[in-house]
């Protein structure tokens, strides 16, 4: 009697072990990754350029969700309930996320990247997409080429739309005021806000979504806009220039506390992002470009002018300094709100 009980208990325990072991292996085998990205055409370009080859190689599906944001990342890491394995962050957000301890370090040995620009290879983030903040205008408005002209509402009359993000407009204000791009940092905030005061009454919309500037231009709500490059370079009826544009890049990062197996899968996805051929495919979808150094020859010849990182465009632009923006985030945001409220 005793042995029967013992035996049955033993087999029961063995069964439990077996079940738990099998569920463990089921968990270890990653079938699907989840990604939070910015959405729009940029999201489509991730699908075409990187997810398709990744799924073809590994059989792992990738589900995308948008929009991205630091708030989402903080919520899921602090709740210890990760609903995504890889998240897109702007360069300044990456600094903030690092400081808040929200990110896992990337395993660059596992990624085995193809040659990429140095600023794209960070401990916590892979810079995957370059974009620019540039001047754009309606074709029937007088063409402009510099920030000084953008500020000159006498010679170039018309309404303006400016980003509701200080990092994308304060440097331009300083350049319009005569500061050389290489002397921008540390930013002279007093001077920048004083310059913005001059144009404030001609700004009809402070935009928050990248889709707004091209729409406002098309609707004839405004004649001149500060816009993200990919939104206007292929738009009809809109002219643009990369001259004095601000070049920036967004990163992919991994939330803290991710399961190691899932992280390993993300590293494989990240390798695909460093492949120049894949970046060229993504650039067909939207005119933003990846971090490969030898990308130019792979891009379509007829659209070369629309890409932010081709030699001709990269040379007339300046890079933003995410470290400075992170260090001064609170101060700038406070002053930005005060400026908009007219305090």
């Amino acid at each position: 009697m005793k042995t029967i009980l013992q035996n049955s208990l033993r087999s029961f325990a063995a069964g439990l072990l077996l079940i738990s072991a099998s569920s463990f292996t089921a968990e270890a085998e990653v079938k699907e990754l989840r990604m939070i990205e910015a959405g729009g055409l940029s999201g489509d370009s991730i699908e075409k350029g990187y997810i398709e080859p990744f799924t073809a190689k590994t059989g792992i599906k990738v589900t995308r969700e948008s929009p991205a944001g630091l708030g989402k990342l903080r919520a899921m890491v602090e709740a210890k309930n990760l609903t995504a394995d890889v998240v897109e962050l702007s360069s300044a957000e990456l600094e903030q996320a690092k400081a808040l301890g929200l990110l896992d370090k990337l395993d660059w040995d596992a990624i085995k990247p193809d040659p990429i620009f140095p600023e794209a290879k960070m401990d916590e983030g892979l810079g995957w997409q370059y974009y620019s903040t540039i001047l754009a205008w309606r074709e029937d408005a007088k063409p402009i080429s510099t920030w000084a002209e953008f500020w000159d509402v006498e010679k170039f009359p018309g309404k303006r739309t400016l980003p509701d993000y200080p990092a994308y407009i304060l440097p331009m204000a300083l350049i319009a005021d005569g500061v050389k791009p290489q002397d921008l940092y540390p930013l002279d905030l007093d001077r920048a806000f004083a310059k913005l005061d001059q144009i404030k009454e001609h700004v009809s919309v402070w935009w928050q979504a990248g889709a707004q500037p091209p729409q406002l231009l098309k609707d004839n709500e405004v004649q001149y806009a500060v816009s993200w490059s990919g939104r206007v370079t292929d738009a009809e009826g809109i002219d643009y220039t990369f001259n004095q544009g601000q070049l920036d890049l967004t990163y992919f990062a991994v939330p803290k506390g991710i399961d190691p197996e899932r992280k390993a899968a993300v590293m494989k996805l990240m390798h695909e992002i460093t492949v120049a051929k894949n970046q060229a495919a993504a650039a067909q979808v939207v005119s933003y470009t990846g971090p490969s150094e030898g990308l130019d020859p792979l891009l379509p010849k007829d659209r070369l002018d629309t890409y932010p990182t081709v030699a001709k465009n990269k040379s007339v632009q300046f890079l933003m300094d995410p470290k400075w923006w992170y260090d001064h985030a609170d101060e700038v945001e406070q002053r930005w709100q005060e400026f908009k409220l007219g305090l």
Partner: protein
Amino acid sequence: MTELASAIPRDNERRGLRLPGGLLQVTPAAVFILLLFNIPLLLMLSWSVGTGDEPLKYFAALARGSVYMKVLGNTIYIALLTTLACCILGYPLAYWMWSLSPRRQMLVLALVVLTFWISILVRTYSWIVVLGNDGVVNRVLRWLGITETSVPFLYNQFGVIVGTTNVLLPFLVLPLFAAMLKLDRRLLQAAESMGASQATIFFRIFLPLTIPALAAGSILVFILTLGFFITPAILGGGRVPMIANMLDLLINRMPRWETAAAISTVLLVLTLLFYAAYQWIEKKSRI
């Protein structure tokens, strides 16, 4: 009279009997609200309280920070103007509806209720088509030669108030219309038979009797405007900051949740105060 007196306790009895069953029926909903709404709300309140020897530091920062106070003030100002606009448009509308034949009343009522079926987003965007620089109104004005350049209707306070008033008008009209229907028409007939003019009847009987309903509806509109997000974001052009948009910035972009929690707490307390006033007026108006 005796009949009425004996009916009252019986009614109470019936209510007393029905209560436990009713309680049982609301339990799932109550648990649902408790778990999914009240507990997160308490957690949010706990965010607003700092740790250590300075538990009120986020609230103190709010009081010091002129930005937050200005945005809060601006929100209340917009809410007041919206309420005023709703009263000016809503009272005559409700009065007109009241004066119609029952069949026409149903028709107009259906038109008012219909607006609830159209998404706020769609109704907000359609104002761009109507009032934008190249919108219908501006084209007509230019065509008629009244103005040479476009009138900036949108992307300012006016645009936001047009949008919020449009969305919130039914919230004032419906309860007001209901109160008017409940009004005893014999009072008006009595006044008329005594020889009062239409104006006297309106100002001395109709208006005083419907003012409590108007006040209650106004507070409802005011409270709802305080939390508006989409309409100011679209029609304000980023130039009309309201508290909900500020919260979005603090939660999603900064992310500074402690400050956001403190602002939310202030907003919640304000709203509860106004709601208490609403309840008080509602009760008064029923008597």
